[in-house]
């Protein structure tokens, strides 16, 4: 087990190195620092001097991979690659193109992101399981048919509509909650209510249908027939036997997304003015701040890889039949 986990982590690091190289190629060779400078300065103020100044301020004037003019080991370390890519592994994100410390910003913003993402995730999981279990309970009735139809319809609606209509309905029309913003303490609930609600509703359709097939798959198994044959009521069969067994694959599949909760919900945060990592990323994309985008790529893939490893481990914990090799 331990050696397996160590091997998985080593593979994860390898993947992370790949991600790092890939982003480096994408950001520094496909598109040179000169281009970045031109784009950031923008318009008529672009001149060779301005570009040079911009590059020096941000340390982009160094050579990419090999600094021939530097002494000794600095030949390797005094380069853009070392400053901007290798340092990420030490969680030293450097400063953004607008000059602020990225590491500090990330630490500040993780809290709000989690505050939105975790309730959305937990409540959402609960609501989806209840909804899909009801669909299964009422199978072959009109209730199931219409529940299914509603879920399909909800799937066809872009999450942006849910946000816009929800904000309009609850904040502007009914004035129940503020349109956007964020505050600590008890005010937190007021600010989070709507984003969490919309986050749940916008995913409900697709996930309920997915879980429904999982439950239906489970309901066709032999032990369910046995349970029915010994005279258990349908409710007992469904809630005691089917639910427990189907929860296993559901829970192991959700482990993969747990680390990604740190990143928060991209769109939701920026619509609701929540100062989390999601809105940070979107602001960076809009401001074309490549340093932030690169850091977020690194953080995002790191969390994804942690999710992968956790999934593998949770499989064995949940189901001893699966042997790790």
């Amino acid at each position, binding site marked *: 087990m331990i050696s397996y986990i160590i091997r998985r982590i080593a593979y994860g690091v390898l993947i992370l190195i790949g991600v790092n190289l890939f982003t480096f190629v994408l*950001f520094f060779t496909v598109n040179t620092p000169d281009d970045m400078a031109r784009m950031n300065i923008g318009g008529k103020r672009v001149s060779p001097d301005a570009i040079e100044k911009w590059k020096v301020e941000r340390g982009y004037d160094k050579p990419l991979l090999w600094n021939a003019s530097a002494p000794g080991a600095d030949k390797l370390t005094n380069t853009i690659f070392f400053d901007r890519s290798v340092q990420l592994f030490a969680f030293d994100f450097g400063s953004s193109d607008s000059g602020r410390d990225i590491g500090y910003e990330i630490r500040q913003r993780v809290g709000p992101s989690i505050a939105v993402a975790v309730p959305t995730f937990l409540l959402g999981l609960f609501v989806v399981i209840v909804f899909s279990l009801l669909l299964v309970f009422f199978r072959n009735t009109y209730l199931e048919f219409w529940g299914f139809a509603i879920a399909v319809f909800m799937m066809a609606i872009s*999450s*942006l509509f849910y946000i816009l209509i929800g904000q309009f309905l609850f904040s502007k029309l009914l004035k129940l909650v503020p349109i956007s913003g964020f505050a600590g303490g008890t005010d937190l609930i007021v600010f989070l209510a709507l984003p969490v609600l919309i986050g749940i509703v916008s995913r409900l359709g697709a996930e309920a249908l997915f879980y429904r097939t999982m439950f*239906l798959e489970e309901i066709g198994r032999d032990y369910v027939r046995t349970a029915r044959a010994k005279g258990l009521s349908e409710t007992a069969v469904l809630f005691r036997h089917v639910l427990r067994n189907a929860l296993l694959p559901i829970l192991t599949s959700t482990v993969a997304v747990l680390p990604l909760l740190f990143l928060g919900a991209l769109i939701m945060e920026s619509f609701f003015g929540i100062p989390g990592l999601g809105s940070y990323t979107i602001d960076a994309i809009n401001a074309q701040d490549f340093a932030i985008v690169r850091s977020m790529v690194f953080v995002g*893939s790191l969390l994804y890889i942690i999710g992968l490893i956790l999934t593998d481990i949770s499989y064995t914990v949940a189901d001893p039949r699966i042997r790790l090799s």
Partner: protein
Amino acid sequence: MPKLVFLATDIVLYLLLAAMAFYAWHALRTPTLRQAWRAVASDSAAMSAAVVLGAFLLVAVLDSFHYRPRLPAAPGVAAGAPVAYSTQTLSVLDALLAGPREAREKTYSVPLGTHQYSKESMLVGGKMIRDFPRLQFGGPHLKDTGRDWIGDLVRRSAAGLAGGALAAATLWLAVAALRARGTGVGIRESLRAIRHKTTYIPWRAMLLTAAALALFVGWVAALWPWYHVFGTDQTGNDILFQAIKSVRTALVIGSLATLATLPFAIVFGILAGYYKGRVDDVIQYIYTVLSSIPSVLLIAAFVLMIQVFIDKNPQMFETGVERADVRLFLLSAILGITGWASLARLLRAETLKLTELEYVQAARAFGVSDAGIMRRHILPNVMHVVLIVAVLDFSGLVLYEAVLSYVGVGVDPSTNSFGTMINSARTELARDPLVWWNLLAAFAFMVTLVLAVQLFASAVREAFDPRSRAFRPHRAKPAAGRARGAVTEAP
């Protein structure tokens, strides 16, 4: 003679249509494929969706023949001088809808409105007053809008709906007559069969969908020349026109991006599954790296790169439409390049299974080359996975475009798309008095399109993956039906 313009997405769209035609021909000749598609053709939800999709496709195709109109010769120019073409690239759809396209107001106006949505200072009879000015193209024929407006609206709507109903009835009769000729029964018998849903192809559902479409088109056609049916946006452009133009963008993104994933996914997936070992390791490594980067960030990174490229080479594009089109094309390509991992994973698993089967072993024993086995024995047998994933991904991509446009890495701001419409609706909902029609139009068109795609896709999946058929919901039938349902429920 106008100058024909072939945009990159146009050409790919033509090729795609040709490929679809070729596939249809191929499917008709292959018994297994014909069988599966027959199952799709008997699904009423899927076929109704197909009718709607057909209408959307027609719009997209009309919007994919581009040209630059010839400008009238300037006075005093010699006869032999080179012809000047407009800097505007138009499509056949633009030409067909020239009226609404050019009917430009100053700013917002409500659907079917006659007056502008905001007040302006006007000079009336020598006095300065602030009032809602009349629209230029919203009910210009009405003398007294307060009195005539509602009557005019009802009259025109009735005429339009009647026209639509007439067209629907004609279509219904025509289908019945054709069916009657094909099956050798009387037309009365044929009509009854359609009404009682006893036909193999669900004609009733399809014709009802077509009727609903015809009524809508008839109503719009009767009102559009006189009113802005869905109102106008901030710069006074007709919203319905924008919504219709957005259909092409959505379809192009959905189909091109899906198409772009295929080469990577098929080649890498089959190679990994076939050769196993080192090749498998390398390919798995590549797609794990790709899928571990959050997709929005990856796409954003790529899009920022191409924006730099486009900005650096402005001379490559003659008109604004061409520049916007290159961005659309590259965006689709990027969605493809970043999105092939999941399909490749499925294909790898499927190939792993297939290579263990006897017929592949036999082919190998006969000395068929690796490439030959992969092309002739593996590729055709994983194509159903490709087809299912392609149709299922399509609607997701259409939805994704809106999100990307919001993030600012979507289509060019000048391209009409649902994303740009929703984007502008964001500020409109916050303003007072609010503007709701832009969002409504985007919502109606987008939901219809996505829903139709999803219904069709789920029928295709059921036809090609029999396992998924067990999960179909059943509506309760009268007593006898329920008893049957209970029996068939156990797999």
